[in-house]
């Protein structure tokens, strides 16, 4: 990475590394989902991983949050190796995951969903503060606070999924396809909010198929294809490079 930085000055990034993935390989049985992936996320950034279906983006996120064990490689978070740790230990360290397909608890109210997001938090005052922050970011959730989550629209459910993950007061927030199945206007709203969350001090790793929308708000970007890392660079630079956009980003 450092060698790359020397001859590619736009790769220079400020901020200390928060999450470093080195030579990560993940398999489902004999099928390689992610191969030899290395990436890092620095404090205060929105880092996005873009790529088409089956590129291994979601697998990467799931491996980080302890849902899948990697076959090879290391994941270092704030100096500690966390690969292969159980899900609850990863959450305890401050990595919260808003999963693909939202996976809110449909039979619980918005309120109860948010409560569960703060499952590992013991400080009641801090949880209340976090809850106020989430409801301020997503006023729609405040309106629906006592509604069963399963009865809300897709956009509202997505807001809840992000809000629920934030209730764990994460240092690093993992977002898996927050734009999936949403109307463009809602995508803009969600992405604006993600930017706001970053500005309030939470580092974000965003996985997206909607590459152009992701690159618009991201600071740094990785492009994956069939389990391999293809490209990386400053998000704005990548989105301006027509050849790259045509080849990888469906532009």
């Amino acid at each position, binding site marked *: 990475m450092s060698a790359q930085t020397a001859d590619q000055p736009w790769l220079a990034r400020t901020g200390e590394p928060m999450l470093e993935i080195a030579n990560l390989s993940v398999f489902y049985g004999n099928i390689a989902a992610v191969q030899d992936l290395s990436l890092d996320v620095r404090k205060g950034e929105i880092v996005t991983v873009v790529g088409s279906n089956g590129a291994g983006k979601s697998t990467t996120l799931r491996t980080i*949050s302890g*849902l899948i*064990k990697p076959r090879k490689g290391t994941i270092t978070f704030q100096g500690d190796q966390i690969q292969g740790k159980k899900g*609850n230990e990863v959450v305890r360290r401050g990595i919260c995951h808003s999963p693909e397909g939202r*996976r809110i608890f449909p039979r619980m109210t918005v309120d109860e969903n948010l409560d569960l997001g703060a499952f590992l938090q013991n400080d009641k005052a801090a949880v*209340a503060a976090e809850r106020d922050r989430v409801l301020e970011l997503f*006023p729609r959730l405040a309106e629906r606070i*006592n509604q069963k989550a399963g009865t809300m629209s897709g956009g509202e*459910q997505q807001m809840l999924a992000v809000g629920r993950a934030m209730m764990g007061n994460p240092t690093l927030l993992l977002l898996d396809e927050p734009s999936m199945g949403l109307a463009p206007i809602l995508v803009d709203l969600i992405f604006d909010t993600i930017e706001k969350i970053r500005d309030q001090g939470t580092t974000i790793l965003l996985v997206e198929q909607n590459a152009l929308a992701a690159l618009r708000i991201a600071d740094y970007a990785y492009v994956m294809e069939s389990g391999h890392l293809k490209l990386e660079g400053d998000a704005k630079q990548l989105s301006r490079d027509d050849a790259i956009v045509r080849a990888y980003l469906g532009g």
Partner: protein
Amino acid sequence: MATTTAPKSPTSTKSARAAKSGANNRRWALIFAGAAILVFVFYQYLLPHLDQSVKSVFDSWLPISTLEESLVWIICAIGLNIVVGYAGLLDLGYVAFWAIGGYTAGWLMSSFFNNVDFSFFGVIPPQPGGIHINFWIVLVIAAAFCALWGVIIGAPTLRLKGDYLAIVTLGFGEIIPQVFYNGDCIGPACWNVSNGTQGIYPVDSMNAPKILPGMKGATLGIFDQPYKYIFFCLVAALCVFVSLRIREGRLGRAWLAIREDELAASMMGVPLMRTKLAAYAVGAAMGGFGGVIFAEYVGGVVPDRFNFSISITLLAMVVLGGMGNVWGVMVGALVLAWINATGLKQIGVTFNQVFHTSINFPANNYLLFGGILVLMMLFRRAGLFPEMRTKAVLEEDEVADDAGGTHLSDPEEVTA
């Protein structure tokens, strides 16, 4: 989408929610407690003085012994409800815990181990030979022992999900009663742990403090039925209390989260294995209560009482009453236990008299249970008294589907 309202204060909505469920629980608790006391007063003080014809109606349609047996079923159904209703883990072998609880009572409250002579506030007058421990202490020991077995059985099986878990629990539900059934000669040294098919008989009478006027002696035997009934009620009340309290707490929320979506729960930091084991342990402990009380009700422990059909009947009680709703489960258990013990027999007798037939109604009870389960699934999936949250969503299911759906029920690899 951009409308803003002031976020409601977090405490107000939560306390409103708690107050609502609290009022509901208080209402049900009053109904059950009132009914229990009425039944006791009626059978203890009124029934003996009533006319013989009235007495015989009650003796044949609703004897107090049926109510006592129902309480055993209620206690076990409440325990199974924690595993199936709260945590969403289908357990088809719950009878194992009932049996372990029963045999714990058999070991600790009889002359079974006749080479030792140990008594601890046991049966009065004291009996020589065997282990005679106080009923209430045995109750606690059996609960702890069953909880331990819940963990032992759960640790390997809870790595499985859904149908696979159900099948493995089914296996354990067969294995453990079989061990007791053939337990008169285990291992090369031929240990006798259960007397085999003979069972352990008799089990000591129940110790009970003289808290009610007219109670004679400090132990309750086979014939002190209404008194025993009221103490069984107390144990059932304890189970209700415990399951309602846990439900409101952190563990209860974790169970609910696992029931709704295991993967999402683990993403929230819920420790899957520990939480599921806790459900097994608490459920099993109540099975232990049920086992001890059953041993006390029957006056002994007989292995062929612990068969697979008990697991299924208990499951039917939970489904009929309303999975996840303790009160509904209690109603379901009462109804099915009554049908099983006296209802079906009496209906059959009446039916045969009126229509001059000779149909054996009790022999067809599983036909009836199967029919009930099918009808429930067709017309009232959430049970007679659905848990509040289930009710709301079954009604709103279509809305949720239109809104883009929520559940991606694809098989997931979760490292538990």
